[in-house]
Each structure stands twice: as C-alpha cells, then as structure tokens.
C-alpha cells in the first residue's frame, strides 16, 4: 500500500512560510492499494489537493473519518470527486448515540455554516456507521475501534497482504491512566496498533503544553513515543501537529524525543507530500 500525507496539522490549518516543510493543511492521508482501491483517511483541508491528484475518471472513493471535529471534515466539500456525477463516494465514520453519521455531517454541510447542502453534491453518497464489523474494501481489511478523544472517535487499522497501517490522529491514551504506558490490556488503541508496520499517531503537544491541556484528547510527544514503544510498531509517524508549532519547533521536539527515548522503531515525522510504501 502507498500512504501519502496531504495534511498533517491538527486543530486549525496553519499555512505559513514557517510551516512549509511539515505542512499547514489539516489531517488527510490517502492509502492506495495495488488493485487501485483508494482510501482517504479524514477530510481535513489537505483533501482538496488530493482531489486534484486522483484521476478524473475514478469511479469510487472511500473516505474513512475518525471523527467529526472541524479539522477532520473541513475540506470535504472541496474534494473534487464529490462534484462529479457518477462517482461513488462512501463515507465511513462514527454516529453519535442519538444522531446518524449523515445527520451529524449535515450540521456542517448546510447553511449557514456552508452554502451547499450535502444532498446537492453531484456524486452518489453512501454513509456507513462505525464501529462495527471488519470492513473489506478492495484488497484492504479494516478494523475500526473507538479510542480516547472527546466525542465518539475511531481509530483504524488497515491491513493488506500481511502488512498494516494504524491511524490514530487524535488520541490521548494517557488520559486518567495510572498504568500508562505499562499495561497493554488497559491502554486505548493498543489492539489497533499492536505490531503495526506503520503507526500514524497524534503528537500535538510538548510535555509542558500537555500539563495545561489534559483531557483535550491529544498526546504529548512523550506519550506518543511511549505508545509506539508499548505497541511494538516498526515505523512510527508523528502526526497532527499543533498549529503553533513551526518547522523549527517540530525539528527540535522530534530530535529531543529520539535522543531521550531511543526508540527501537524508525521515526518518520509526517510531512505534506511524504509517501511511504509497505506490503501490497
């Protein structure tokens, strides 16, 4: 599978000369299978560029949303395939206890927050609610499970031909835990990430910042490195950067973390335009 990063930022887009290397767009990743299947992980502002990259004759796109916070859906109406008649767009994501996924998304995709209603888009839209059974899409087998983040939030493990990608962009496994990072059974996201070839994980805060943001649903760099170590992943991709962290800040944060934690896995911080390949 080919994994490409179109948006790496969390909370708010942060375009600036000081964020060009890591990127300023919010969360969006594409995963392409050898059979031509395309998965899109989250629909942050990065999805706009992805829409222009995909072939104009593509007939099906699968968008897997982790949750419906704005930084993960804001790019959706600007995704070009949604405006093409005949294209099948399958959107997967969490319902709430009282509203369907469709209804929850329409809160944003309707006036006054957005001028176009979701039902006025040209593509054929199909909504699928998670978590539930394992999803099979093309060559991909996908597990979706709830993880710790405010409001129902899903993490994904995507497997193909014996390799795996785990995507946990907004995740606070240390929240309230007295055993983190030492207890697999009681750690959010463990089952999804265990032994994964690639782990894409929230690294929103420094240690100091985390102390004043406990419960916001995000990880410090320390917690993310500890989670990667606990789960025994092969490649760890820090992701979902705070909009206040510029390129130099992120360089410094990851250099310090690598020196401190000497991880056994390879650390590859996400950058817009970065592509990684694994397995099928």
């Amino acid at each position, binding site marked *: 599978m080919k994994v490409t990063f179109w948006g790496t930022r969390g909370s708010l887009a942060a375009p600036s000369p000081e964020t060009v290397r890591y990127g300023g767009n919010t969360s969006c990743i594409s995963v392409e299978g050898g059979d031509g299947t395309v998965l899109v992980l989250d629909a942050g502002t990065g999805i706009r560029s992805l829409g222009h990259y995909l072939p104009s004759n593509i007939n099906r796109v699968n968008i897997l949303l982790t949750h419906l916070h704005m930084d993960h859906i804001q790019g959706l109406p600007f995704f070009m395939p949604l405006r093409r008649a005949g294209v099948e767009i399958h959107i997967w994501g969490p319902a709430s*206890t009282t509203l369907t996924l469709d209804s929850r998304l329409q809160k944003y995709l309707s006036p006054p927050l957005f001028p176009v209603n979701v039902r006025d888009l040209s593509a054929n839209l199909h909504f699928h609610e998670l978590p*539930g059974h394992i999803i099979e899409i093309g060559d991909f087998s996908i597990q979706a499970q*709830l993880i710790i983040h405010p409001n129902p939030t899903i993490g994904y493990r995507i497997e193909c031909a014996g390799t795996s990608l785990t995507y946990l962009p907004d995740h606070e496994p240390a929240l309230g*835990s007295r055993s983190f990072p030492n207890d*697999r*059974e009681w750690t959010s996201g463990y*089952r999804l990430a265990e032994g994964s070839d690639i782990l894409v994980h929230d690294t929103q805060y420094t240690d100091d910042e985390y102390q004043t943001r406990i419960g916001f649903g995000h990880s410090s760099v320390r917690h993310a490195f500890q989670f990667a170590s606990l789960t025994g992943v092969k490649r760890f991709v820090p992701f979902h950067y705070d909009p206040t962290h510029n390129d130099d800040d992120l360089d410094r944060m990851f250099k310090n973390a690598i020196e401190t934690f000497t991880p056994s896995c390879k650390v590859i911080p996400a950058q817009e335009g970065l592509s990684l390949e694994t397995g099928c």
Partner: protein
Amino acid sequence: MSQQEIEVILSRHLAEYLAMPIFIVNPAGDLIFYNEPAEAILGTRYNETGSMPANEWATNFKPTDHDGNAIPPEKLPLIVAIKHHHPAHKIFWIHGMDDTMREIEVTALPLIGQANRFLGGIAFFWERSRK
C-alpha cells in the same frame, strides 16, 4: 492479552479517581477491575488478584440478607444488571476478608457502549453500617 473496550477503560479511569467502592465486570460477570475502596471490602488487592471469575468474587465476601440468609450470586445487583440489562439496587450484608460485617447499599448498571454494544456492568457500593 486483549485490550478492553474503550468505554470500559474510561470507566476504570473514573473508578480509580472516586472514593466509593466500584466493581466492573465483563459481560460474563467476571470481575475485571475493582478500585482501592473496593479492595477494603474484598480484602484483596486488584494488583495481586487481577480479574476474578463471577462465581469466585460473588461468593468471596459472603453476601447475606438482614436475616442472615445467604444471597445466591444470581440475586446480587451486579449479576442482575448484566443478566437482565437493567439497573438493580439492593441493601445487604457482606462479610469482608478483614472479618468485618458491613451493611452495604449497592447500585449496579449495565454498561451499554456506542452502537448499543453490551460491555458488562458497573456497581457502586455504599457502606451503611458495620459490626
């Protein structure tokens, strides 16, 4: 070991910060977590025992009614909550491992997660008196 469901993990985190005794069981009724205040009732420590099968924890503290009659496991609020998927409440006596008789009031709830997944149950204990 497999990871617990997220709602169960969050329930444990809450239990660890509350001062009232709390039990959490899985759908089979096995005790998968009890907090420090509950350790005083059971007379054992979670870190030492880990999880306990239903027939073990439900009889360990010898629940009895006000007349001293033993209460079978299926009549305990937590077992009722997970068996029938509705809340249950009861006042009864237990004989703790510390050899103390406690009159406790127990409220148990089934844990129903997102997408109506049945995840087990949780019980809150309140000590009314002891002898």
